[in-house]
């Protein structure tokens, strides 16, 4: 403790400090209740019947009553939607990280004419909302013959994710030291070999950040499937959710079970990796 803070506490008195800290704790606890209550109510309701939901929405249910969950499992296309989301998100992430690392490595590691123009070209996409170009994108996908395929989604997600990925990774790659690279070059290693064996292992932390920043919006996206995908068997989870929410309008237990199952994957991953999620999702905003 520095003397400054000691005199601060002397002057303020313990009581005032305790009062202030108490107020802060009350604000934080109230806020956490507001943040978590809807999720807890959803969790409880997924195990209740209609009557139980309407009469006692806050009561703890009998968690062994899996009727609603089984209904989602067996009577809807939930598993198919989940699988589609995994395929589309997974494929998009692989392509984003591959292409993003290639571009960032070229711009961040080599001096060549036009490199700043190339970077500008990628960063232009950073602030422009691609949603507003949906009409030309729709026509482009139709002309390429990939409307109503998962490829159309993968392509658009890669386009959406490349600017932030190139931005985050270029900044990181440019700061890596030259010594290892130069030594390898002296030994006659080829440029691809240097990139693959020496530099890429060092780039991994930036890949995690860029990966998380992209994976959440892609996993959660609803807008592009809404426009590009009509076939039920190709729908992703958020889009599929709208389908079965429309079918079970009167069966509230099933509705909440559907919401619970749809949100469970990302909530579980978030609880395990909360630090990485928070760092990744605020990466662009925190310098």
């Amino acid at each position, binding site marked *: 403790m520095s003397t*400054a803070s000691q*005199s*601060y506490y002397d*002057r303020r008195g313990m009581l005032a400090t305790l009062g202030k800290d108490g107020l*802060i*704790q009350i*604000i*934080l*606890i109230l*806020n*956490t209740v507001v*943040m978590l209550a*809807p999720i807890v109510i959803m969790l409880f309701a997924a195990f209740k019947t209609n009557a139980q*939901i*309407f009469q006692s*929405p*806050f009561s703890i249910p009998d968690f062994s009553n899996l009727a609603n969950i089984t209904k989602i499992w067996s009577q809807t296309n939930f598993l198919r939607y989940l699988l589609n989301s995994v395929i589309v998100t997974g494929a998009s992430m692989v392509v984003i990280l591959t292409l*993003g690392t*290639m*571009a960032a490595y*070229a711009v961040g590691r*080599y001096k060549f004419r036009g490199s700043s123009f*190339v970077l500008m*070209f*990628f960063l*232009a996409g950073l*602030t422009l*909302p*691609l*949603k*507003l*170009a949906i*009409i*030309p994108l729709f*026509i*482009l996908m139709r002309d390429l013959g990939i409307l109503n395929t998962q490829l159309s989604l993968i*392509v658009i997600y*890669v386009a959406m994710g*490349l*600017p932030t990925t190139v931005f985050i990774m270029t900044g990181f790659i440019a700061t890596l030291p030259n010594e290892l690279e130069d030594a390898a070059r002296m030994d006659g290693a080829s*440029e691809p070999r240097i990139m693959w064996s020496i530099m890429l292992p060092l780039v991994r932390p930036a890949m995690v950040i860029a990966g998380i920043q992209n994976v959440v919006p892609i*996993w*959660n996206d*609803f*807008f592009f499937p809404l426009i590009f995908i009509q076939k039920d068997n190709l729908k992703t*989870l*958020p889009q599929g*959710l709208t389908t079965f929410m429309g079918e079970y309008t009167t069966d*509230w237990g099933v509705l909440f079970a559907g*919401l619970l199952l749809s*949100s469970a994957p*990302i*909530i579980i991953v*978030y609880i395990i990796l909360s630090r990485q*999620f*928070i760092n990744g*999702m*605020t990466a662009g*905003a*925190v310098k």
Partner: protein
Amino acid sequence: MPGSPLVARRLWITALIVPPLAFVALFVVYPIISAFAYAFFQWHGLARGEFVGFANFYRVLFTQPYADWTLNAFTHNVLVFFALMVLQNGVGFVLAYCLWRELPGAAFHRIAVFLPVVLSTIIVGFLWKLFLHPLFGVVNISLRGTGLGGLAQPWLGQGTTALWALIIANAWHMVGFPTLVFLAGMQRIPSEILDAVRMETESEWVKIRKVVWPLVAPSATVVFTLLFVGSFNWFELPYIMVGVDGSPHKATDVLGLYFYRTAFGDQSGSGQDFGAGSALAVLIFVFIALVAGVITFKLRAREIQL
């Protein structure tokens, strides 16, 4: 062969740069340029017709019923932006300030406040739609249960409350984002500065206004700009909670819904018009780019380099 390593190097850089560049050119740059071009043509369904100059823009801005719809939706976006500025960014700042003291439990509160942020807007929208149901929703059930039954109302069904219900749901969903961006900004304030402040003043208010707020200006710039872009791109939450027509009676209509309806047709699937839709997209686009540019520029000017 002299010069061959140089050629090889050049080939290598080209091989690295061309695939991502081609991808961005085809799926980002080309569609955005096309979006501008399309607005100057007449459209027959999915087929482009003749060049019509500014006719589409004139139509959505100055002829009825488009002009009223455009103004109505735009006004709602403005309201959403200012309301969220208080309910999302303002509350976020207060929460960040509370978390910054690192009292016991702060780590848990930090994880809790960010939890809704990772959820899909679709899940959040449906969840709140069920909560706000006039008869069976938990909000009205709680009001009745606590003797405040008089306050129970069809939150999403009446023009006076529907937009505010959406705003509250959005604030619940996203408040964790500004909170943690502000918190990161506060944690970067050097401890020498904070010690010096403690010598000078006891007032928490003076400390916030004169020291913390100016020093988190870079976070504020980012959070304000993102909220602006987000507010004028608002689509998913209203789409799920009040439908594509912005019910009731367009009381919740915003530019995103209006653009979608104009381009791809309304609930009944009629009225699809790529010309008017493209003109709207260009107007929204230019407006967002201009204002976001001004906000960033103005706010950057007051940032202090530490």
